[in-house]
């Protein structure tokens, strides 16, 4: 299986220094752990951070030197020429627009199916993709053929970058392409700190809940389960409702 991982350059949230983007590290880890033949691709200005990605165990990173151009057509061209089985991306970039649109645009341009919130890939028998759902649930998706996977940031813990691996891998730079459509420059300000908006009725102080002191263990257990059910935290279990008990 051939996997292409789209990489980007992140920035440290405190110092602003360039680093490996956290969500791209997770995508790369998932690709490397699947045992497939992994290729990295990065479109953008030259950066030393690419060697850090090599340090995670990547053999090759293709660097498409594109300055400030729109990277989507460049990535589309690269992925078309590579005949990959899967294309993995992180969720959003840490620098730039951070809209999270790149994988969706790639899927649209390449007419490939897209699966988001991916937390696992299993290619042993057919291809099974694991998707994260609300409440820690996991949805299995089976299929064949190429796809674009948006890897969830909480999928796996990425491995560290080692110097030995950095020296073993190589960065292949593709020549600068001129006359590319440029992205419009935005006039932005530093983000202000915002607290959540006041919600209707939230100003009222919550009345202190009564403390149950004289319950037997059985009554206490029943009270807890009733509370959980009343608030919808657990699915209805018929025989644990107190009405049936009595």
């Amino acid at each position, binding site marked *: 299986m051939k996997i292409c991982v789209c990489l980007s350059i*992140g*920035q440290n949230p405190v110092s602003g220094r360039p680093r490996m983007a956290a969500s791209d590290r997770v995508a790369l880890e998932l690709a490397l752990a699947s045992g497939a033949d992994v290729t990295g691709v990065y479109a953008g200005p030259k950066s030393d951070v690419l060697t850090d990605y090599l340090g995670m165990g990547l053999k090759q990173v293709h660097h498409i030197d594109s300055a400030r151009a729109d990277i989507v057509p460049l990535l589309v061209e690269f992925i078309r020429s590579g005949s990959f089985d899967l294309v993995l991306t992180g969720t959003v970039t*840490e*620098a*730039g*627009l*951070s*809209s*999270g*649109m790149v994988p*969706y645009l790639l899927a649209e341009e390449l007419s490939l*199916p897209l*699966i*988001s919130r991916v937390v696992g890939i299993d290619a042993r028998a057919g*291809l099974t*993709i694991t998707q*994260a*759902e*609300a*409440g*820690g*649930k*996991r*949805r*299995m*998706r*089976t*299929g064949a053929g190429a*796809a674009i996977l948006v890897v969830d940031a*909480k999928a796996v813990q990425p491995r560290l970058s080692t110097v030995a691996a950095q020296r073993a891998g190589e960065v292949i730079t593709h020549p600068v392409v001129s006359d590319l459509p440029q992205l419009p420059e*935005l*006039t*932005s*300000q530093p*983000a*202000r700190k*915002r*607290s*959540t*908006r006041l*919600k*209707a009725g939230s100003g009222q102080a919550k009345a202190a*809940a009564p403390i*149950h002191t004289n*319950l037997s*263990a059985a009554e*206490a*257990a*029943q*009270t*807890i*389960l009733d*509370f*959980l059910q009343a608030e919808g*935290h*657990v699915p209805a*279990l*018929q*025989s*644990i409702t107190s009405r049936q008990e009595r």
Partner: protein
Amino acid sequence: MSNRLNPHKMLGEIAPTSGLRRLNRLAPLKASTVSVVARVNPHNEYRARLRRELRQADVVHRQTVSAQSRKPLHVVADSAPLAFVIGLGVEAWAGAEAELLGTAREILPESAIALVSLGKINCTPSEDGADRLIEGPAGLEEHNFDALLALVDEYKPQHLIFAEGGHSSDLARRYVARTKAEAAFNVVQVRAGQVTCLIDGGKREFTRKVPPVIALSRIACAKLDAEMLYEARPLALPEIAATDAAFKDAGVRVASARDLPLSEAELVVSAGAGLTDWDSFHAVAEGLSAAVAGSRVVCDAGSLPRSRQVGASGQIIESRCYLAFGISGAPQHLQGIQACRHVIAVNTDPHAPMMKRADLAIVADAQAVLKEMQLLLNKGGAA
């Protein structure tokens, strides 16, 4: 002296054998004392007062009901531009649908706001601000996308409003990639006609005019104060040309309590220094499909791995419900559960800080309660 039943008549005029005697059977008037006092049965008077009060209470109650139904109805003309608020069965955050509707009214005061609900409705559309209501079936992302395209084709809304999170942000991006519509993602602030979006990984922001597609973060949203009623008029769902998803749904699996990450869990069962019976603790967690967590003391002792520690030096969690067994609630631990909606505490000490934080506080021995919960859950599982 006047007759209390008929003040215009003087008692003296009434014949001693009149209806008054019948009225007051308990103390029949003597012919000789008629002119002195007419006694009224105090019991009768009490009953009359009670009936009067009940009647009044009834009237007052009916008034409030009618006052509520007389809340002004907000009607938007059919010619008004339409805006879709997309709600999917699983909300991006608790109460997202109602908050999106409220915020949509704020951004687009002139539009008719239609709630498109694929899956189940998680709000009260008529009170939360929906002028129109479209209900559709729940499905995979691909199917929701097909339904959305069909709906947009049918009703031609000028704006689409999504929540930023979960399935909703996925659907928004699919739509934008397909239609190349202008969009604002990560919107953190709204004013009439303007939105502010975060870029650069949240470090910078820029303000722009309202584009056709808006994905709102939780921070930008607020629910309406219900001062009006809205039509919530149902609109028909058009025929949806369903395409087969390239990757078939092979079912949903629930992670076991030990694997479920704390950051994702909706229900967390947590242990403190007061817990000794670990077997029933894990059995209860498994029975409730809850994640297992512990305080620092428990993790220091090695009873739970470090990744399960909740608190300032462990993880800050945002689960919907937190069950604390034998945790007194040090400030560092309470920091970790600040965002939890409900807290249930079982502790032997009624004055522990955790009991003040709890929505349901029970003074009992954690071991005994866990044993009983395990019994109840086993019974529930067997039924």
